[in-house]
């Protein structure tokens, strides 16, 4: 038996979509793996109904105590430059997203992932697995301690090297807000030849780059990098006007 529910009085949010000029395309010719994988047909518009405006509740129950500190595994310290990565998760109208699960994964300081498919000749680190998870606080803030990942070669073109990056995964509140992305470090000399970075339209590339944070850098301990993540927000414009009759 399948249940039914009346929709009388249902008022659903509509999530704003980033303009195509500042949104990463699914496929990008210079990134060769997209050639046979990125769909070729134009996607069909799906209106935001209940399935799209809801999303799973994933919080502290998905996180273990050591998940916010990637620098200590198997009873020892990972090699590399210790860094504190911190920032906020916001939606596009500037509201913090509290209680949001943030999943991260990355290469070690030599640029090697702990994964069966990664077998390029750089050493694994017995004290680094490259996995972290944190939940944002009531103001949408997150932070984790890790080591700076190394660059790694990937065969996309001759002498192709990925700029140092950390993979991020976020859910937000709604299916529409789901985001998987990569955080870069400022002024990386490898940006120019990296098609994954350059697939982001030029006007939006800076949003993927963290900034060095002197304020949070810890004396005699760790450099800090700050990166705010902005998820899609709700379109408020049709519903509110202020006293002057302007759209709020």
């Amino acid at each position, binding site marked *: 038996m*399948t*249940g*039914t*529910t009346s*929709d009388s009085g249902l008022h659903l949010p509509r*999530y704003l979509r*980033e*303009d195509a000029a*500042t*949104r*990463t395309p*699914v496929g990008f010719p210079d990134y060769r793996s997209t050639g*046979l*994988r990125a*769909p*070729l*047909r134009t*996607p*069909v*518009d*799906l209106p935001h*109904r*209940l*399935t799209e405006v*809801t999303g*799973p509740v994933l919080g502290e129950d998905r996180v273990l105590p050591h998940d916010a500190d990637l620098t200590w595994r198997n009873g020892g310290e990972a090699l590399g430059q210790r860094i504190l990565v911190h920032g906020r998760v*916001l939606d596009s*109208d*500037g*509201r*913090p997203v509290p209680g949001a699960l943030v999943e*991260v*994964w990355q290469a070690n300081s030599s640029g090697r992932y702990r*994964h069966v*498919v*990664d077998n390029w000749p750089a050493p694994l680190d017995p004290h680094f697995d*490259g996995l972290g998870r944190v939940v944002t606080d009531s*103001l949408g803030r997150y932070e984790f301690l890790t080591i700076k990942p190394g660059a790694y070669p990937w065969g996309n073109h001759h002498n192709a090297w990925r700029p140092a990056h950390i*993979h991020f*995964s976020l859910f937000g*509140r*709604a*299916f529409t807000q*789901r*985001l*998987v992305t990569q955080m870069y470090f400022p002024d990386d000399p490898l940006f120019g030849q990296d098609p994954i970075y350059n697939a*982001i339209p030029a006007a*939006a*590339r800076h*949003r*993927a*780059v*963290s900034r060095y944070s002197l304020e949070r850098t810890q004396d005699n301990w760790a450099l800090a990098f*700050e990166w*705010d993540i*902005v998820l*899609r927000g709700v*379109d408020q*414009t049709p519903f509110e006007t202020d006293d002057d009759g302007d759209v*709020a």
Partner: protein
Amino acid sequence: MTVDPLDVPPNPSEPFQPRSGQRGSGFLTGPLRLGTTPSATVGPYLAIGLTWPDGVYAAEEGTAGGFWIRGRVTDGNGDVVPDALIETWQADPDGRFASPEDPRGASTYPGFRGYARAQTLSGEFEVFTLKPGRVPDGEGGLQAPHIDVSVFARGLLDRVVTRIYFADEADANAEDAVLRGLSEDQRATLLATPGEDGYRFDVSLQGERETVFFAV
């Protein structure tokens, strides 16, 4: 206690600046006030960060009425994609979502999470779930039972989104506003077909029978 002014939620009358890259350059002129963070591919090593021991269970193992949905993801050559991740999100059998964002109240269905994630490492993904109920379509009608699906993979710079409908729900499918907007061939790519212990649902990223993908 001192408060960092930048940590205080912004005054809605003043645009707020994200602290990433160049400060102050994250604005759009449209209705979005902050530019959203651009997506990137999960890459080949997604298993490190995106797999959970209980990931495949949208409903707890052994839940009455539960079944498996299995399928392959194939590329433009018809080759199996072994390094994709599928995520599913759906209503419970009563048509409620396990989410505080459901304005009718969150699902209380026992053992139901409504969300699953599964790799295609073995050549197939599999998720264990329950048949979703029908939910309002916002226009006075009801949607057919469906599951929203995100597909992530190396070679996809953003997720692609599709929906699973059920071939054995012909009456409900005939009334579904989304399906009605598609051609017969397109509809066929969204229908999971009943099998031994559940359903099959294959995703074709490209080619003759390219799955219908949605812009959300």
